[in-house]
């Protein structure tokens, strides 16, 4: 495998990390508002992701940084083309991130409700727009000579919006399952009930996505099989395995997208010659080699200590103990 292809795969891996990890914490961010009946209950749900959300978000930052280092043309074109959606994503992430820290310092229940709404809104917008962005990568965007030539409305076509809804639905399922595994009692039951509905909707949406898929229907079918398997496992109460299936489904969906694009990294909807490819968007061999060494050393270490952090906080959360004093 050439270094260019290796980095294409590695960037896909970073996006998988982000979509899986931040996927469930976006899901939890939205769900807490609807599943929690009062601020204590919502707080308990949020507590399930409190130690992790920041570490999860770094996968996104690193995916961005890696795109700049390994495929500067991809990074430059993609990020400037999706300017407005990204501004909204950034605003959503800012509001959401800072609210986690504000929430537990807010004294009035009403202030906490505002915080919870902000967390839910931020998570919702980010989840939806990341789906839109990914769908745009699949169908291509109007790009000529590396510059965006369309308008905002070229980015929110029905297909892209469908991608957003699919992403949202997957994240909600993921979040509900995560909560079912992390929380005890009545709140767990509520999350479990929701996950049963969410996963059926997601299976349905994945079925449509498979029909609409541009290319590589085999991997799309794999995603569909995985999410359907997860749905069956949920009904049989094999929740841990179902959660793993959803994670694998996230991975195979990102893989399907990247396979559909390959050898392009950014498809131009204007003409195929305008598309950026793995070859013409990549950095020099020296940079790729250097970054490969850094990634080979550090990515396993990162996965090790992040896993350890999940292990440290493996204990189920009971609503009574959900309040930690900083």
């Amino acid at each position: 495998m050439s270094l260019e292809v290796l980095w294409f795969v590695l960037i896909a891996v970073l996006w998988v990390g982000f979509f899986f990890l931040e996927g469930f914490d976006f899901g939890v961010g939205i769900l807490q508002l609807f599943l929690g009946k009062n601020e204590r209950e919502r707080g308990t749900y949020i507590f399930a992701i409190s130690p992790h959300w920041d570490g999860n978000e770094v996968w996104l930052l690193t995916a961005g940084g890696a795109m700049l280092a390994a495929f500067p043309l991809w990074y430059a074109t993609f990020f400037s083309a999706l300017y407005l959606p990204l501004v909204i994503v950034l605003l959503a992430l800012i509001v959401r991130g800072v609210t986690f820290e504000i929430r537990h310092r807010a004294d009035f229940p009403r202030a906490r409700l505002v915080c919870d709404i902000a967390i839910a809104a931020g998570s919702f917008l980010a989840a939806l727009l990341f789906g839109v962005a990914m769908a745009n990568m699949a169908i291509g965007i109007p790009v000529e000579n590396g510059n965006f030539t369309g308008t905002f409305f070229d980015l929110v076509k029905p297909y892209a919006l469908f991608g957003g809804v699919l992403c949202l639905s997957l994240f909600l399922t993921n979040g509900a399952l995560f909560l079912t595994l992390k929380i005890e009692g009545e709140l767990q039951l509520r999350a479990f009930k929701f996950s049963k509905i969410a996963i059926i909707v997601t299976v349905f949406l994945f079925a449509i996505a498979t029909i609409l898929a541009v290319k590589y229907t085999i991997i799309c079918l794999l995603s569909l099989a995985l999410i359907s398997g997860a749905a069956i496992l949920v009904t049989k109460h094999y929740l841990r395995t179902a959660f793993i299936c959803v994670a694998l489904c996230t991975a195979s969906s990102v893989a399907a997208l990247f396979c559909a694009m390959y050898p392009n990294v950014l498809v131009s909807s204007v003409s195929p010659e305008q598309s950026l490819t793995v070859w013409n968007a990549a950095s020099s061999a020296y940079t790729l080699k250097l970054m490969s060494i850094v990634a080979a050393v550090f990515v396993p270490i990162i996965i090790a200590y992040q896993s350890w952090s999940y292990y440290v906080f493996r204990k189920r959360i009971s609503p009574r103990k959900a309040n930690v004093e900083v």
Partner: protein
Amino acid sequence: MDEIVFLSRLQFAVTTIYHFIFVPLTIGLGLFVAIWETESYRSGNLEDERIARFWGRLFLLNFAVGVVTGIVLEFQFGMNWSEYSRFVGDVFGVPLAIEGLLAFFVESTFLGLWIFGRSILPKAIHLACIWLVFAASCISAIWILIANSFMQNPVGYVFNNGRAELTDFLALITNPYFLHQYPHVISGAVCTGAFFVLGVSAWKIREGSKDVPLFEKSFKRAMLIGFIGVVLVAFSGHLQGQSVAKLQPMKFAAMENLKETADPAPLSILPGIEMPAMLSVMVYNKPSGEVKGMNELQKAFEYRYGPGDYIPPVWITYLSFRVMVGCSIAMMCILLYSLFRLVLMQKPMHKKALILMVFGISLPYLANTAGWIIAEVGRQPWIVYGLMPTEKAVSVGVSNGSVMFSLFAFSVIYAAMAVITFILMRREIYRGCVDHSSGIPRRAA
């Protein structure tokens, strides 16, 4: 200047300056929190734990804003400066990606472990977590400053395929600009932490409560560390100034508003007040030596790069340099006074002096901001010194309206965050140390 260039630069200035309000405190206060946690670990004393956690709560509030505003910076190079990213991504992306892999993951994961693992983790490992967070924030500074140093003094690259390509990683990370900049930035961050602790402690001592001894201890420690910090700031600043004089003579001349080449060159204290030969002393450590003026440098630049205006906005750089040095001198005076009073005279601080310390919190912030304005505005009209002009770096496919919208939206959110953070910080300071021993958690904290 093109409107889009102006808007993009303004947005970059707003988001970066705002981000860098929080970063130095993350590093500086992080050091203090880690020291207090160590002390509390060693003594096992509840009082030590209370004060450690008090500073920890302020640290977290500040950290949160620093993190979320940092995300914008990671994406902005592609969103607003796509031509720049295309041109230097091969070089510039490397330190940025390494920063994520080496620093951000450690910082965020171990911060989570430190906050929520207090009663779960073994005490020694819990302590290691906060030290890892502090170390990671210093490592993060290494890589982002390596990236910035490439913009100031490009090294380790060749011009190939119409772009800059990295050829020498070692040269990139031993960029002389970086080696001089890093100590200056880090010691500035230590001063920020120290003056924050000094100001807050002064407030609490003045207010008077049963915890006054704890804050007096904090005050003394911050005074000593702050003093070391300020001395290092001055020393490293002197070295960095000399390095700028060598690597970016135009920035140096603009900083001093030196129009004509002079030998020996006088130092302008304020407009109209000059100290003869002092600028030569600063550059060469002796009262003679030529310092090039802007007019001569402009001619040299024109000869090399063709017609154009190569002089950065002089009044901004000139003024910022005076603000930076002025604030540092004020910091030094405050610390000398406190040292004199507390150590030599063994007397408590004067009540009025304590109020002064509270306002003193603003000094390192002003100095940090002014310092970065010198570095970035003084580099103009280049985005990469001598290699790429700023106006050629902006995204072509992004409309004025889009940037106006984002600039407006970021400004509004940032202003709201500033207000909320300020209110919450003040409340946290007002509340002071919390009694953790009672076993009754603070209301749903």
